[in-house]
């Protein structure tokens, strides 16, 4: 039997959710028999393949590149999981939104000019440094999301609980201790 094709991606976030995924420890070995990681920061693939079964998306939508990827992923993936608080609610990355209409400019100024010790200047290279979105938003504001796994990060056992249900062919339901923000 084919293994389940699983992808993970990291948008605007701290990678903590991926770390938590790695905290699955020995369960990762069980998983290796059942799933194939076809695209992820932890594997080498450069292009997002077609016909992916599940994609775990960490992070909020912060820039044009995130958005482009997200639409590509949506087209090539059966089920998208908003993986962690940043993907589900926007979380910490959205805090720049409260800086007002020009927050995308302001936040860069603050980071690369005001706080720079030397070489102050905003990195800018067309086609290489993606433009920031006017507003950071959770991923469900742009595409259909099939499953939500909140938490900052979601602890390994909650990730496991979700994956087990997925592998059993169920529509995962997160309840009680499995559902918590923050």
């Amino acid at each position, binding site marked *: *039997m084919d293994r389940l094709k699983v992808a993970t991606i990291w948008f605007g976030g701290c990678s903590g959710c991926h770390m938590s995924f790695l905290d699955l420890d020995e369960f990762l070995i069980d998983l290796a028999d059942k799933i194939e990681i076809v695209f992820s920061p932890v594997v080498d693939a450069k292009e997002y393949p077609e016909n992916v079964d599940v994609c775990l998306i960490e992070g909020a939508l912060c820039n044009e590149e995130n958005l482009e990827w997200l639409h590509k992923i949506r087209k090539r993936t*059966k089920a998208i999981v908003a993986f962690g608080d940043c993907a589900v609610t926007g979380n910490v990355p959205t805090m720049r939104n409260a800086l007002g209409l020009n927050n995308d400019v302001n936040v860069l100024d603050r980071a690369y000019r005001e706080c720079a010790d030397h070489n102050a200047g905003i990195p800018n290279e067309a086609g290489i440094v993606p433009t920031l979105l006017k507003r950071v938003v959770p991923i469900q504001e742009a595409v259909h999301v099939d499953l939500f796994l909140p938490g900052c990060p979601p602890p390994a056992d909650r990730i496991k609980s979700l994956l087990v249900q*997925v*592998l059993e062919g169920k529509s995962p339901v997160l309840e009680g201790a499995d559902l918590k923000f923050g």
Partner: protein
Amino acid sequence: MDLSELTQIKERELAARKKYTLRCCMAAGCVSSNSEAVKQELEKAVVEAGLQDQVEVRGVGCMRLCCEGPLVQADPSGMLFEQVDPEAAKSIIQTLKGGKAKARVGDANAPFFKKQKSIVLANSGIVDPERIESYIAADGYHALYHVLREMERSEVVEEIVASGLRGRGGAGFPTGLKWGTVAKSAGSRKFVVCNADEGDPGAFMDRSVLESDPHSVLEGMAIAAYAVGAEQGFIYVRAEYPLAIERLKNAIKQAKAKGLLGAGIFESPFNFTVDIRIGAGAFVCGEETALMMSIEGRRGTPRPRPPFPAESGLWGCPTLINNVETFANVAPIIRNGAQWFAGIGTEKSKGTKVFALAGKIQNTGLIEVPMGTPLRTIVEEMGGGAPDGGRIKAVQTGGPSGGCIPADSLDTPVDYESLGKLGSIMGSGGMIVMDQTTNMVDVARFFMEFCMDESCGKCIPCRAGTVQMHHLLTKIMEGKGTARDLQKLEELCDMVRSTSLCGLGQTAPNPTLSTLRFFRHEYEQRLQPDTFGPRGNGKPARATPSA
């Protein structure tokens, strides 16, 4: 004051009437078109023509056809002058002697006037609102005398019950039932409150009544106070109505001076004083519990009912709250009897209703018609249809709590039940006509913005729900919405309606729901295709393995 004095005032007033009267509209609409100068010029012209003994120039309340103001009408000929310029005064005086006026002569027999039936507005445009004698000459305060000296409290309540009068503020609660509850509520202190916080955009009936016939409201309140056992009344009126406030203050002063307010009215043991409380610009204060908070000097936030004001209202005392038009109906009912009133209107909606006709319609102004009059009669015959060859598309009633009635339902009789069935409400009486150029999504967005701005912020569904609904409506209006947004909007409408604390939130979705019901295609035309990609089935597992 006793009956003989009252009769004397009336007779003296009638005896002083001159051969000709020129009634000059001094309600806010005409005042803003310079009717004060018209009146002054008319008075001057009378003196110049040496006709002081024959002609009286009388400032009166609203003469209804506001769009053609300033209005002047001559008695006994009934000739109506429209858009009168102060310079035309002299020529108008000359018409009394057969001359030709340099002002437009209107048709006083037009359906706009002839189809009206006046109870509440009977004195409007006839009596001088600034002189109590003028009101007394029109049988004013006679009902109060009758009630205080010849009726038991319970009889008064029974009379109102028998008349079938229902609240004119919007919901149409039976007035007699309310009075009965307050009358029965235990408490040594009770209050009567007149709700004159007419906040619905597009409604100006209450303003006109207060400006045109303030004493009828005072008399109605006094009768109500006697019936329920209250000695103190409040009129809560909007600060936006300075002329109405001024006339009310003046009316209260005159009534006090004549002993028609105060202690031992008509030599009975009944005392009644009325104070004016001026609102400060909060639509939500039209809601009765919020209004009471405001009278108590607090933030106008509503509280859950029960307890109803009839049991626990101002300062915890039983309180009767009725709207201006409701009180204005009281004295005529007492004067003419409950049966007379019950004979007008439909089975469940008795009497007449005053509407403020505005928007895309030829004749804008005030009309009073029997309950059950078809909308078509009002907007087409009386209102004269849409101007500039336009086509009527919908009629909005009930303001931000009401709905839009589409043109194909114009044969609906105007009564509480029929409007309710169409997803609208009678409301306080604003009636805004819309033509084919009106965008219904924009109308819904306009009302939602109103409710969002006017939400007091106390309960979550109204405070945050109106913000989200407004956001969704704006999105759809701008062509950025999708079918998902429309679905979210409808869900929110249902939720906000069912869970909000007060009437403002509970009815805030009405304009949206009603435009969705009758003009859904206008929403759907604006929707964008969904770019959200395929919706997964939430079952990514081996049930659907990849090839």
